[in-house]
């Protein structure tokens, strides 16, 4: 089973926790005409990691790297959830039963459904199990 089409390139950017850093990232993406589709910030004392799904990840990487940001790609998957009570439980239960660990996740409520972005320890297996159990994954194409 080929999980590649469901593997989405997230950009992860290191940022010192001080005023203006997020604006610098967002401004640079705007300059390149890059659209942010989903977004989260994880913060610790003094620094944070900005994670985002964008429509042009390679262009975003190049731009942010060129202005001195530390940036990397991370493979994540995007699961469509039923936007009703229990929607999140269904997905979490599948991964839990298969022993797949969620490193972190964030969600957005889109036009058609709620979407859960997942960073898991075993991407291929997660894709396979979710599909096998009737779940719906967004393909990478849908983010470009």
């Amino acid at each position, binding site marked *: 089973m080929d999980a590649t089409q469901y593997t989405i390139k*997230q950009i*992860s950017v*290191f*940022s*010192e926790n001080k005023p203006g850093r997020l604006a610098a990232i967002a401004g640079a993406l705007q300059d390149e005409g890059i659209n942010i589709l989903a977004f989260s910030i*994880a*913060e*610790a004392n*003094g*620094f*944070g*990691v900005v*994670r985002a799904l964008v429509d042009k990840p390679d262009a975003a990487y190049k731009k942010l790297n060129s202005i*001195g*940001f*530390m*940036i*990397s790609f*991370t493979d994540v998957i995007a699961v469509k959830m039923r936007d009703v009570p229990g929607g999140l439980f269904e997905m979490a239960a599948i991964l839990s039963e298969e022993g797949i660990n969620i*490193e*972190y996740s964030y969600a957005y409520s889109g036009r058609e459904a709620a979407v859960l972005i997942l*960073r898991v320890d075993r991407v291929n297996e997660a894709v396979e199990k979710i599909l096998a159990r009737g779940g719906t994954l967004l393909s990478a194409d849908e983010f470009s």
Partner: protein
Amino acid sequence: MIAWDPNMELMPEADLKEMQYKLLKTLVYRLYSFSNFYHERMETHGVHPDDITRLEDVVKLPYMVKSDLRDNYPDKIFTATPKELVRYHVSSGTTGKPTVVGYTKNDLENWTESLARALTSCGVGRGDVVQVAYGYGLFTGGLGLHYGAERIGATVVPASVGNTERQLELMQDLRVTVICCTPSYLVHIGETAKKLGISIKNDTRLKAAILGAEPWSEQMRLRIEDEMGIKAYDIYGTSELSGPMFSECTEQNGIHMWSDLAFVEIIDPETGQLVPDGESGEMVVTILQKEALPIIRYRTGDITSIDSSSCPCGRTHPRIARLTGRVDDMLIIRGINVFPSQVEHALLGIPEVSGHFMIEVDRVGALDNMLVKVELNPEAFSDKINDILDIRRKVGHTLKNMLNVSVAVEISEPGSLPRFEGKAKRVIDRRVL
């Protein structure tokens, strides 16, 4: 082994000691007779040249400190007449008012010979192309290495410091084999090369670097040697002694201090007492043949130890260990002595962070807080916060083991901490004591 001046460099130790005694005796008589400064000092201290009857009697003479030079600004200690002076250098004054050093023709000759021996001992000679990337001008580094390298018949590229892209261009186009600069500047050159897609290892003929004017560590040496495919040698000197004068030989195990030029003692900086060979302390130097600005028992403020055992290279002159700090750089954090060089030493052993760092010290209530800012290496960056927190913990833990004092650690973006092209100023001490 090739020596520049084999008769001198390989002289049996006993003969060297005998020569040092004669030079010291002559120096003391000359200064007692012709220098107001030294005459008064010796009178006050109750010592007469006749009291010096063997080399060990040097301890009867008073110490000289940096402020003696500042207080006698610009030339009150000089014992040469203005007509005999052929050059001035002025120290950078990082730790106070500048000091002026004058040179006679013989002073320049001894300085140049000292460096000719040092460079030769690093395997540099005719056919080598030496890029001198120390500052030219009032600072002694540039002109010192310049004349030393010319003396041994090497080709000199007087690049001075700065304009790093041009330094790299010259290095490639003029087939430079040896570079002389501060260790942090060479690291900066390396980083710039990487950005430009130049591999110093593969795209240049560089084989050696002569690095000094600031403390650096063994790990930094290994990193430089590995990344650039070169040998990196430590060089020592300060403007008060003439400038850079002494370096490691190809054994890379201590800096040979030419005994005919310098008499070295290591003392406890607190008590002023001599410490045994091999033990760390402040280096005190007497320059035995200086004419314009005579230097007797000058407290350099540099922390090192001395090794008088014979060197496998065959040179009989004693070696000092890599400097581990300066008496005046020493920070006292919650009663514990901390040297910035220890922080550097610790960080170079942690691949997840770069060698650049800043130390900030504050006092909160009665407690000293030391913060060390480090840069994360891009290869170590992870999208998971916990991975970065682990690195921060590791840095904090390593520093605590090295310094015996807890420090806070801040992870910064790569390239965000200051780079230094001259002497690095990595400590911001905001304590009001």
